[in-house]
């Protein structure tokens, strides 16, 4: 009989399809795991609604749960994802792979353009500026570090 803890452990091994250094659990997209009667129900929420990785995430989760010998049931949570749900571990992994983690959520408009909120993941300087609100995926913006002259991606605050 599979336990909820075993399911969480298995899900923590699934890399995000677009930023593979962080796992789905690090990202905070998995909200709840319920185990019972040979079934595992996972409540999950995409980062951005337009995230193209949603279906891939869903099938990776289902596959892992089947490997544990249970029947998966993946529901989309009604509560929308917030970048505050990225774990401390996830934020550390993002920094290590050259992404600035999101600022803690306030009104997006203010956070995004405030200085000092997004230190450069390469040199740690606060002297960075927003280059483009939009980036290669819906959840990322592009910034530039005026101290070490490194462009980098920043996870949007949501």
């Amino acid at each position, binding site marked *: 009989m599979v336990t909820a803890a075993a399911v969480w452990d298995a899900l923590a091994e699934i890399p995000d399809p677009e930023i593979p250094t962080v796992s789905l659990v690090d990202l905070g997209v998995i909200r709840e795991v319920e185990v019972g009667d040979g079934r595992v129900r996972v409540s999950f929420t995409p980062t*951005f*609604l*337009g995230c193209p990785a949603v279906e891939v995430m869903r099938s990776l989760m289902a596959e892992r749960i089947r490997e544990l010998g249970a029947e998966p049931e993946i529901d989309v949570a009604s509560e*929308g994802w917030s970048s505050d749900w990225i774990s401390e571990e996830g934020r550390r992994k993002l920094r290590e792979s050259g992404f600035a983690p999101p600022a803690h959520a306030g009104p997006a*408009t203010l956070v*995004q353009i405030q200085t000092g909120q997004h230190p450069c993941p390469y040199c740690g300087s606060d002297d960075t500026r927003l*280059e483009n*609100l939009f980036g290669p995926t*819906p959840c990322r913006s592009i910034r530039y570090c005026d101290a070490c002259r490194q462009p980098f991606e920043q996870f949007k605050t*949501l």
Partner: protein
Amino acid sequence: MSAQELLALADDELVLGWRNSEWTGIAPFLEEDVAFSSIAQTEIGHARAWYELAARLIEREGVDADTLAFDREPGEYRCAPFVEMRLVPDWAATIARHWLYETADRIRIETLKGSEERAVAALAEKIDREEAYHRMHAQMWAERLGEEPRFVAAVEELWPYAAALLPPEQRSTLATTMSREIPGNGPLLGKERGQHSDDFAPLWEEMTMVRRSVPGAAW
């Protein structure tokens, strides 16, 4: 909310997303190519979420977000003429629509956030936080184009279309926000939801072409 009301929201976002994606590869500079492509992607993501809610209400075998987005006849789409217009390669008009749309859409989303239907209110709340980025982008460009005559003329021309995007009871809020008068019946003629502009038929042809070419194909 009725399925038809949900479809109106979904169709607006799908068709505007489609129009925004027409800048992919040809925007005036690379940053805007990225921006409009990303905005298109999130608008289409919002459309999918509204279609999924509509599909639950319709409860007919085989109805899902894809069938609602692509398998209806042109006359069944509920989008407003405002989002249908093909504006590439006119940057001034594109920014005018972007700015007017985001301003109007915010009013609509605020109302939906207060819905008594939990699924509708939760989705509107989520969409609102994502749309904040679209609004920042639109606002930045509106300020940048400022008094540029082509931009001013485009806002003037598109204003009645923008007003017609919203149900009549929300139009005065939009007019106040934009410091404009609510358009009269004359200027609104042909721009109200329920009618389609001449640009819609070719858009529908293109948008549904792949689905129609092999009905029922799996991807």
